[in-house]
């Protein structure tokens, strides 16, 4: 077993730092076991309206209210004596982006000044009633790659004025606008794009707060709320000064490359600020293609320092995961660092959750959106995975307390290097699979499925997987329980790039139109009562009534049903 303890120190530090405040819920020792599931059936009513969600929770029509966001909802839920709220740090980042291609934002002094007038505490307290965490680095606190030791820009308008004065932006007392030293003219009007008040009142208000603070120190900044697609369109062609948006990030900080590498400063690239910095490029390349974890961590730390100096973004806050549970109805929900207790990435809750009165039975689990098409090839939203994630299963699992990798469908693995061609180095990942794992229709799960999935996704250029699989050269299956994936480049992340949930070969090999395939609408060719949504996971899709509910039932042949008796 080669589970890596790559994050214990930082993660623990963090939890300690916030322990007294945030995590009363985690005072309870998290109890979980890698076996399950413990309920027979999960009914997932689809309730989109947030008020209706609250009422459903109050009435016990759902045992969970996942991902509480609105302060009002949190206040409401916390008054409910039957509610238990779990809190976990998340991988969420809300930021203010600068367009560094345009003056005067090309001057770091101006960006720093804006950073200094950004009052995170006020934003968080007034707009979010204190339920967010201030974010001062480019990797959220929950991540093992978070570097707290980066240059900080605390709220300090005096400091901001000083920086601007020093950089030569003299204040014209008559107009209250500073003069651009390069042109000798007053600074041009700059706009902060925000979503509209309707869509995101807090973002719009936050844009207004920053703009007003900037105006007070002589930077002519105006907020401009606009429709989301219009805003995206403008960002896409780099027609903006500043904008505020959020990212939902992941455990691996490879996004630092996607966001800030100079090669991504192209059409459809995510390097919207347009930062091009050779030193930064080197650092984020090392984050993207690290030979091992230590390199990755060091490079990520360095990248965060450079980013904090150059300031393409002002990072504002990070949203912790707050999930409310009906503790009088269920128990066994497992809080997980970075993912929260209710999210689909957290398979432990799926396995461990049970009714208070005992194992078995039905629980009701809120689905805040339509699960859409339930086709793994195109399933791009979290809501689809809220369902699919409980049907599918991965090669690797993640320890909820430490975020270590744990063997799952793969009982072990090796990450090595190989030579795609003489003189070049690539990565070779070998998976050793558990024996006796079966698809929900009874077919055995083998390395052929892995090979099929990777080749199928690559052959069809399935957009969701293009980035991950672009370096795959070939897949070998020396025996049904060993799969070797060859990559043309060296990166430790390739371990994760081929560790998804897989497609059952016996179903998918006949699928020609992967885009239009709606597996839940097609009955299983052999087994009655099943659809073509087939996984190896703990639950089986029984029924999906669009607009109403999804019904999942326990997989009776799940390979992790009960611990082996000794």
């Amino acid at each position, binding site marked *: 077993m080669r589970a890596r303890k790559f994050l214990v120190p930082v993660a623990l530090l963090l939890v300690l730092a916030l322990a007294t405040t945030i995590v009363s819920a985690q005072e309870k020792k998290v109890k979980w076991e890698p076996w399950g599931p413990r309920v027979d059936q999960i009914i997932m009513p689809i309730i989109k*309206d947030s008020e209706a969600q609250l009422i459903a929770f109050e009435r016990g029509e759902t045992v969970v209210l996942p991902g509480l966001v609105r302060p009002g909802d949190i206040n409401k839920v916390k008054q409910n004596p039957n509610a238990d709220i779990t809190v976990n740090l998340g991988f969420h980042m809300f930021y203010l982006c600068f367009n560094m291609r345009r003056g005067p934002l090309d001057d770091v002094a101006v960006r720093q000044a804006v950073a200094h007038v950004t009052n995170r505490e006020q934003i968080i307290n007034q707009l979010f009633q204190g339920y967010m965490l201030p974010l001062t680095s480019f990797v959220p606190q929950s991540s093992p790659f978070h570097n707290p030791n980066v240059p900080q820009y605390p709220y300090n308008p005096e400091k901001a004025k000083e920086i601007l004065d020093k950089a030569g932006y003299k204040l014209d007392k008559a107009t209250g606008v500073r003069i651009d030293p390069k042109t000798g003219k007053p600074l041009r009007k700059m706009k902060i794009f925000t979503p509209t008040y309707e869509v995101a009142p807090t973002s719009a208000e936050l844009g207004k707060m920053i703009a007003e603070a900037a105006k007070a120190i002589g930077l002519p900044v105006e907020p401009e709320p606009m429709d989301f697609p219009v805003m995206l369109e403008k960002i896409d062609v780099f027609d903006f000064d500043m904008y505020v948006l959020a990212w939902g990030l*992941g455990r691996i900080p490879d996004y630092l490359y*996607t966001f800030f590498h100079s090669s991504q400063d192209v059409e459809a690239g995510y390097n919207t600020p347009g930062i091009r910095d050779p030193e930064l490029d080197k650092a984020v390349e090392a984050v993207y293609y690290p030979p091992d974890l230590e390199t990755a961590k060091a490079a990520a730390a360095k990248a965060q320092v450079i980013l904090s100096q150059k300031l393409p973004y002002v990072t504002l806050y990070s949203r912790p995961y707050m999930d409310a549970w009906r503790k009088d109805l269920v128990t066994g929900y497992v809080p997980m660092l970075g993912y929260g207790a209710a999210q689909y990435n957290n398979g432990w809750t799926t396995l461990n959750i049970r009714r208070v009165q005992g194992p078995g039975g039905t629980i009701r689990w809120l689905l805040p959106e339509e699960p859409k098409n339930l086709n793994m090839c195109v399933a791009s939203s979290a809501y689809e995975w809220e369902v699919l994630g409980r049907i599918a299963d991965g090669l690797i699992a993640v320890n909820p307390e430490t975020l270590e990798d744990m063997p799952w469908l793969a009982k072990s693995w090796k990450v090595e290097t190989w030579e795609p061609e003489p003189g070049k180095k690539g990565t070779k990942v070998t998976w050793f699979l558990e024996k006796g794992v079966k698809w929900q229709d009874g077919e055995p799960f083998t390395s052929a499925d892995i090979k099929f999935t990777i080749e199928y996704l690559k052959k069809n250029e399935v*957009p969701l997987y*293009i980035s991950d699989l672009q370096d795959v050269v070939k897949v070998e299956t020396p025996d049904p329980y060993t799969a070797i994936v060859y990559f043309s480049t060296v990166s430790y992340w390739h371990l994760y790039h081929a560790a998804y949930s897989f497609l059952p070969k016996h179903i998918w090999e006949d699928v020609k139109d992967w885009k239009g395939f709606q597996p839940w609408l097609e009955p299983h060719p052999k087994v009655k009562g099943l659809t073509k949504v087939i996984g190896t996971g703990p639950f089986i899709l029984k029924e999906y009534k669009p607009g109403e509910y999804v019904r999942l039932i326990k997989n009776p042949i799940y390979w992790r049903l009960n611990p082996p008796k000794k």
Partner: protein
Amino acid sequence: MGFRTYLIRRIVYALIVLFVILTFNFAVFRLMPGDAEKMIIDPRFSPEARMALRKQFGLDDPPLVQYWKYITSLLRFDLGQSFATRRPVASELAERLPNTIVLFLTAFTLTMVIGTAVGVYAAQHRGTFAETFVTGAGLFTYAVPTFFFQLLLLMLFGYYIRIFPIHGTMSAPPPDGAFLRFLDRVHHLILPAGSNVIIGFGSWALYTRNTMLEALGQDYIITARAKGLPRREILYHHALRSVLPPIVTLIFLSLPGMVTGAVITETIFSWHGVGRYLMDAVLQQDYPAAQGAFYLIALAVIISNFMADLVYGLVDPRIRVGAGERR
């Protein structure tokens, strides 16, 4: 003008409207900002992946070819694929249509039946409370915004006195047994349909009352009374029967209003129907979906307008027999 000429004219006319709407539908959605790729913002996406996604929905043909393809595929009810769900819009609409029809027909039938009955009653009881009530209700419900009334009902009966469900078309999951299932559906139907009935019946009753009064003031009604016909006979056989053509026509003419009202009702009561689909799609900039939903709604409206013309032709002897031919 014989009935056949009349019919052909109406058909041609409906087709022209359909064509105009299709063209509008095509033009507007081609001009709007945003595309499929905007629906997915994922930091893992490389520029290549985003481009691939764009291509998947990409429209590379020249506009006229696109237009031709659009028209032909619409006629085959191929409405494209939703940006948001990546499912065929046609099958998503097909899932929702029955819900909309159920809501719509219930509300519609009840509104018409109750509205007509109350209107007739008020017309024959002039100067009584019933008449005041109908006039008042008609005016008030004309002025009150439907959505406001629905929000009030929802707050009162969904949130305050929690006797009705606040979302959806059925319990999740519905109870076993056909009868219980039916009751469950009815339970979910009461607020959305009922609110429409309450809002709708007032002006309907008022209209019925007015036309009935007009009819009752007609000379042929006095003739009928003079003939010594029983009251009932006069009311139904003469007055109601003679206002039937305008009423039936108006029933069909009010169909479009109720179809479009479904957008708001379904949004408020989280009713899994076509109207809400349109609304969601518009708000999410899911153009194929919005286009499809709009197409369906427009089709329903055109058909009901056509039906109104048809029924008018059938009910009114002046058209049915071919007015003027024998004179």
